[in-house]
């Protein structure tokens, strides 16, 4: 597709004047994909009074922003947002569009995919640009959409070789979020919006935001404990480490059953699936049910007194030793580095 578009778009979600973390993560990933495609990275920003969001988007690597600013667009609504994006896609034909796999992204992206007859892969855990042969035909520079499937039993690489536009959603915390070293003087292209009667078929009567009790799901660092932590007192040491690192605390099913931690904080197949940048597993043996909920962490540190514990098969760094003393050392060392 040498004559085709090389544009990578990221739909930028925002709340109260701040871009969602997942959008910044997608810009970081989108930057790499755009470089491989030798094309521009563009952000799609729909809302009202979004200057601060735009600034952040440039800081995370957008070359250009398509901004649709109108008071009627302050809050996300399916119909106007999807109509705007459908029109933009039809007119400008990007090569790739990335969305956060959020309530908004998953509401919006399928409508765009349906309208443009594009492929859409949900919950990708990795995205790459690469060549692929499909039906004996060589396709250059496809978006490789990698995701676990069938209850995590397999990892599939999905391609959309014949679609003009390739789309994917990605969950928060899966990709890294790194500002670019030298942000460009971003170009803002304003897109005109005229509300239509069809845009108003669904109205927001009330919107209620709740303070999150635990930020575990979106946490970039998680300190988790298992049965092997041994006591509530030792578990408090984990909490102290979490505080120092700015991490969220979590536990395995066994830790919940032992009363170390609440059910809302359980990670694993029957609890939450977390995808932090860093997961510190303390006294967790590494049963497959637990591993299912944390294996997508970018890095895993395992601390366990049993050198044969299966957790050491999935971790990147293994520390064999007494949990309580290793955690104390960890906390003290980190405090020293801060100084």
């Amino acid at each position, binding site marked *: 597709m040498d004559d085709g578009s090389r544009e990578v778009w990221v739909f930028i979600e925002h709340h109260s004047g701040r871009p969602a973390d997942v959008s910044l993560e997608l810009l970081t990933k989108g930057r790499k994909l755009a470089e491989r495609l030798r094309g521009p990275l563009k952000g799609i920003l729909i809302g009202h009074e979004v200057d601060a969001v735009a600034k952040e988007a440039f800081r995370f690597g957008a070359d250009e922003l398509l901004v649709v600013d109108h008071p009627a667009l302050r809050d996300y609504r399916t119909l106007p947002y999807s109509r705007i994006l459908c029109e933009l896609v039809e007119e400008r034909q990007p090569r790739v569009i990335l969305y956060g796999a*959020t309530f908004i992204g998953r509401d919006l992206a399928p409508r765009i995919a349906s309208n443009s*007859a*594009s492929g859409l892969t*949900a919950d990708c855990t990795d995205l790459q640009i690469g060549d692929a042969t499909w039906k004996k035909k060589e396709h250059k520079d496809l978006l490789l959409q990698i995701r676990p499937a069938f209850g995590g039993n*397999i990892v599939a690489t999905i391609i959309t070789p014949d679609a003009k536009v390739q789309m994917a959603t990605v969950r928060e915390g899966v990709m890294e979020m790194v500002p670019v070293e030298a942000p460009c003087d971003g170009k803002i292209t304003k897109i005109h919006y005229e509300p239509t009667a069809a845009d108003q078929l*669904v109205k927001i009567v009330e919107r209620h935001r709740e303070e*999150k009790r635990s930020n575990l799901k979106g946490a970039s*660092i998680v300190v988790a404990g298992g049965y092997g932590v041994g006591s509530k007192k030792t578990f408090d040491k984990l909490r102290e480490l979490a505080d120092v690192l700015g991490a969220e605390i979590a536990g395995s099913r066994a830790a919940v059953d032992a009363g170390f931690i609440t059910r809302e904080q359980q990670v694993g197949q029957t609890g939450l699936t977390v995808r932090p940048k*860093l997961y510190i597993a303390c006294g967790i043996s590494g049963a497959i049910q637990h591993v299912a909920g944390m294996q997508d962490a970018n890095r895993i*540190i395992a601390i366990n007194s049993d050198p044969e514990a299966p957790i050491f098969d999935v971790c990147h760094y293994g520390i064999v030793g007494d949990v309580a003393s290793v955690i104390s050392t960890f906390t003290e060392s980190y405090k020293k580095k801060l100084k």
Partner: protein
Amino acid sequence: MKCNSIVMVKQVPDTSNISGDVMRPDGTVNRAKLPTVFNPDDKVALELALDLRDRFGGKVTAITMGPAKAGELLRECLYMGADEVHLITDRNFGGADTLATSYTLSEAIKQLGPYDLIFAGRQAIDGDTAQVGPQTAEKLRIPQITYAEKILDLKEDGILVKRRIDDGYEILESSLPLLITVLKEAATPRPFKARRLMALKRARTRLELEKEAASPGELEKLIADYASKGLYIRTWSREDLGIELERCGIEGSPTKVHKIESVVLSSEGHQQVPPTSEGIGNLLDSLIEEHFFG
């Protein structure tokens, strides 16, 4: 007001029970090898539709796209209380991704006549994409409310729905027709009604009657016989729907499985860190350098 609903349901493999020969080499699923269940979210969607019908009147129609085996699922819909069920089935529908599925379902819905609401589960447990609902709404050019938690009110001119958002909830008012995808928490599906089960367990799809019939002529007679007793499950092929072959099934699916890998916990080895101040200090240095903190 009367409320006519169409509910999109799916029979799904029980993903907790997957064995080795389930995946074909091309990455598609050999569904015949799998135990199947009523997709949990779809059952809740059916319950919501039945509840509205019980309160306001109207009709509930359940439809599914699937193989012959999906007759089981439709009978379960009847046992719960669906007024009408339809099987959308064709060899050419196999291997459909969400785009091809939503095309096929939306074309079937267009033929089923006027409706006020379309219901679907939030997502199916075999793919977890949550895409078919919104894609069907787009193809039918109607609005959608995803992640519905509760239906608060239904009036002549519209419906009031509470839906989940990332950090809370919102209450939306929509005109009809509307497509709603529902969360599992939205309702508890009712049990099968014994009387309906007894009366309807002999309901059959055309595919099921084909097996019983000795000749095409006999099949037509069987169908007429079952239909007269209200036991024929209307069965639609691609030709019956009159829809484009190249937009159905694997042919009409832009997403292709390029490669699949089984998940093997990588024991490629990890870095051993000594449990000492120095060991942990070095680990922290490298993590700080890679911006893991702050």
